[in-house]
C-alpha cells in the first residue's frame, strides 16, 4: 500500500505535464539544425544561424544573432572550431548563462566523435588548418548518429518531461540511418578506391565511410584560393588517374571547377554538407546524404 502510494506520487509528479513552453534551440549550422529538429520534433523550436549555401567558416556575426542567442535555452554547435571565426563575439554579446561552456544548454556535437586529420604540428604555412582536426565530421552518417544521441541526451536533460520523446526520436533516427547506411554503402560499393576531386577538404569522413577517395583538391592548401599552376597539376593528375568527378559545394567557385572539368573530361557534381545547400536536400540530413550518395554513384557510373 505504501509502495503504491509512493508510486502514485511519483507518477503524478511525472505526469504533471501541463502545457509547457517549447525549448528554444539555436543551431550554429544547418546540418546541426536539421538533426536538432529531427530529435526535438514538436517539443522544440529550432533556429539556425548560418545559411545552408554560405561558407560556414565566414558567417557574419550579425547583431540579430546576439538577440537570438540571448533568448535561447540551448545552443547546438559543432565544437570543432568551424564556427570559431564568428561564434565567440556573439556569445560574448548574448550574456546568456544557459549557454555558458559546460552548461547543459551548451551542446557540442563533436563529443564522442573521433576527429580526423588532427595536425601533429600547427603550421599555417600548410594553410588554414583547424587545430582540433577536420571539422566536417557529419559527412560520416555514423558520426551523425552520435551527434543525434548527444542532442537527444541534452534535450532530455533540459526538458525531462519530454525525455522519452527525444530518446525515441533518436532511436528512430538511428534505425533509419542504419538502414540507409547499408543501402548507401551498397550503392557505392562498386566504386571503392575510385578517386574524386573536391574544391575544399570537407570530405575525409565521407571517404572513410564509403571508400571513395576524395583526396585531390582544387585549393592548393585549405583556405588558399586555387592558383593556375596548382590547377594545371590537378588536371594532369586527373587525366593520369582517370578521375571523372569534381565535388563543388554551393559557396565555392563553380567556374573554376567547370574549367578544370572541361580540361580533364570530368563532370562537376553539386555537393553540399548542409541540408538545403542544393535543391532537393531541404528535407534533412538523411535526404541530403541520399542525394549525395545517389548523385555521386550516378556520376561515377556515367563515366
Amino acid at each position: 500500500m505504501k509502495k503504491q502510494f509512493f508510486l502514485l506520487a511519483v507518477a503524478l509528479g511525472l505526469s504533471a505535464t501541463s502545457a509547457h513552453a517549447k525549448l528554444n534551440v539555436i543551431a550554429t549550422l544547418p546540418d546541426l539544425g536539421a538533426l536538432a529538429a529531427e530529435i526535438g520534433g514538436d517539443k522544440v523550436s529550432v533556429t539556425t544561424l548560418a545559411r545552408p549555401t554560405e561558407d560556414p567558416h565566414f558567417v557574419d556575426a550579425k547583431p540579430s544573432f546576439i538577440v537570438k542567442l540571448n533568448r535561447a535555452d540551448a545552443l547546438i554547435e559543432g565544437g570543432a572550431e568551424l564556427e570559431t571565426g564568428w561564434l565567440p563575439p556573439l556569445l560574448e554579446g548574448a550574456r546568456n548563462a544557459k549557454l555558458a561552456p559546460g552548461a547543459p544548454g551548451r551542446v557540442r556535437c563533436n563529443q564522442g566523435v573521433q576527429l580526423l586529420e588532427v595536425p601533429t604540428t600547427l603550421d599555417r604555412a600548410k594553410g588554414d588548418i583547424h587545430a582540433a582536426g577536420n571539422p566536417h565530421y557529419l559527412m560520416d552518417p555514423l558520426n551523425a548518429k552520435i551527434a543525434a544521441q548527444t542532442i537527444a541526451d541534452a534535450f532530455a536533460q533540459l526538458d525531462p518531461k519530454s525525455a522519452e520523446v527525444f530518446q525515441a526520436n533518436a532511436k528512430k533516427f538511428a534505425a533509419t540511418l542504419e538502414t540507409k547506411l547499408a543501402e548507401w554503402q551498397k550503392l557505392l560499393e562498386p566504386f571503392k578506391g575510385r578517386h574524386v576531386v573536391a574544391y575544399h577538404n570537407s570530405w575525409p569522413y565521407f571517404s572513410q565511410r564509403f571508400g571513395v577517395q576524395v583526396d585531390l583538391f582544387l585549393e592548393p592548401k585549405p583556405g588558399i584560393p586555387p592558383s593556375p599552376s596548382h590547377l594545371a597539376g590537378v588536371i594532369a593528375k586527373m587525366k593520369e588517374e582517370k578521375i571523372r568527378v569534381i565535388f563543388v559545394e554551393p559557396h565555392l567557385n563553380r567556374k573554376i571547377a567547370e574549367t578544370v572539368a572541361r580540361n580533364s573530361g570530368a563532370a562537376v557534381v553539386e555537393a553540399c554538407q548542409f541540408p538545403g545547400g542544393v535543391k532537393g536536400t531541404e528535407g534533412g540530413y538523411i535526404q541530403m546524404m541520399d542525394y549525395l550518395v545517389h548523385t555521386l554513384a550516378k556520376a561515377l557510373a556515367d563515366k
Partner: protein
Amino acid sequence: MKLKTIIVLSTALCVSAVGLSAQEAKQMEQLQQQLRQMQEQFEKQQELQRQQIEGLRKQIEALQKNQAAASSEQEKVRQMMERPIAAAPPDTAAGLGKKPWRPTDPLRVFGGQQSYMNISFDGLFAMGGSTARDIEGGTQLGGHDPTQRGFTLQNLELTFDGAVDPYFRGQANVVLQIDSAGETIIEAEEAYLETLSLPGRLQLKAGQYFTEFGRHNPTHPHTWGFVDTPLVNGRFLGGDGLRNLGARASWLLPTPFYSELFFSVQNGHGETAHSFRNGHEGGPFLGRLHTVNRVTSPGDFIFTPRYAASFELTDAQTLLLGASAAFGKNGSGPDARTQLYGVDAFWKWKPANHSGGFPFVSWQTEAMLRKYSAGAFNWDLNADGILDPGEQDGDGDGVADILPRELLTDYGFYSQLSYGFRPGWVAGLRGDYVTRSRQAVYEALYGDDADRLARWRVSPNLTWYPSEFSKIRLQYNYDRRDRVGTDHSLWLQFEFLLGAHAAHKF
C-alpha cells in the same frame, strides 16, 4: 403505519448505502487500474534507464580499450626510438584520431580549445611618402598612422584573451611602436574584464578600454578598412582614440531586433582623453594652456552613453545604426566642459552563397559634433603685468592677452565604402570632412587654428588578403587643407598575424 414507514425508509437507506458502496468499489477499481498503469510506466522507465546505463558502461569500456590501444602505440613508438636507427614517426595523424601528447610533440601555447588563453601577435607596417612636410600630426592625425616618409611601424599588437573563470572574460592588448624618432614605445592599450552572464540582460566591463563611442573608435588599427584613422576621429577623439580607465554597463533591450544601451564612466584625464582633461603636453590647445588635475570629484569623469540598433533589411543585407555622446570637463578652465555627439551607420551586403566572405559591399559613415566650452584664459602666466617670453600678445598692445570664455563648435564626418569584388580583394573609397562652425576669438588674435580649419580628404585604396592572416594595401590620399593647400600621399601597408585569429565582430 409508522413502522411501515420506518421499514421503507431504512430499506431505502440501505439500498442507497449499497449503491454508494458499489460506486466506491468502482472508483477503487479505477484507482487500482490507474496505479497499475503508473506502475507499468514506472517500470518501463526503469528499464529504459537501465539500458542507458548499460550503453554508457559499454562506451566507457570502448574508451578504455582505445586508451589501452593508444598506450600500446606509445610503447611501439618508444621501442622504435630505442632502435639504433630511429624511424621517423608519421607526419600526419590522419585516420588515427587524437593521440596522447608525447614529448616529441610541440607544445600548443595558443588556440581555441587547447589552452586557457588565446595569444596573438599582429604586426602592421607602412611605407610610402607624402608631399606634405608635416606628416605626423599634420596630414596624418592618428597615432597609428604612417608618420614619416619611408617606413613606419604602425603597431605591434600583442593580444591576450580568454575566460577568466565562469564569471568573467578577460582581454588585454599591449601595443609596441617605434616612433618617428626611432624610440620604442609601449602602450597598455586595453586591459579589461567583462561579465559573461549577468542577469537582466546586463553586462559590465571594467578596466582600461576603448570607449564605445561611434563605430571606429573602439577598433584596433589592423581591423580598419584604411591605412589611417578618419579625420573626425583624429581631431575630436585624439590620435590614440578615446580610451581610459573606467567601467561600462550595457543592457540588451528586450526588443525583437537587436538594440543595446551602453553607459560608460571613465577617468577624464590624460592624453587618451583628447577633448577632455588633457594637458596637451604643456603646449597651447585651442589658444589656451590646459591645466589638469587627477580625479577629485565625480564631475571629473567622462560619461559616455550610446545606443545601437540593428535590422536585417533582407536575407543578405544588415544595417547597424548608433548614436553616442560623451560629456566631461576639459582642462581650459575650472568650469570648462566638452560635449561630443556622434551618429554612425554601417550597412553590409553579403550574398547567401559567399565564399570565404566574398563578395561583399559595406558602407560605414560617422558624423560628429564637438562643443568645447573653452574657459577664460590670461596669458600673463606669472601675473606680473609684464609681457614675458612664452606669454602671448596677439593684438600687439604690449600686454599679455586675456581670452574670454567662448564656446567652440566643430563638426565633421567620414563615409567609406568597401567592395570585396573577388576572394581576397577589396577596393575601398573614403571621404573625410572636418571644419569649425566659425572663427574663434583666439583665432582672430593668433591666426586660424590648424586644429579647427576646414579640410577634406579623399582616399581610394586597394587591399589584397593572401589569407586571413596577412594583407597588403595600397592607398592614396588627396588631402585639401584650408590655408595650407593640397597634399598627396601614397602609402603601402602590410600586415601579418600570428597565433589565434580573433573572431570578427559585426
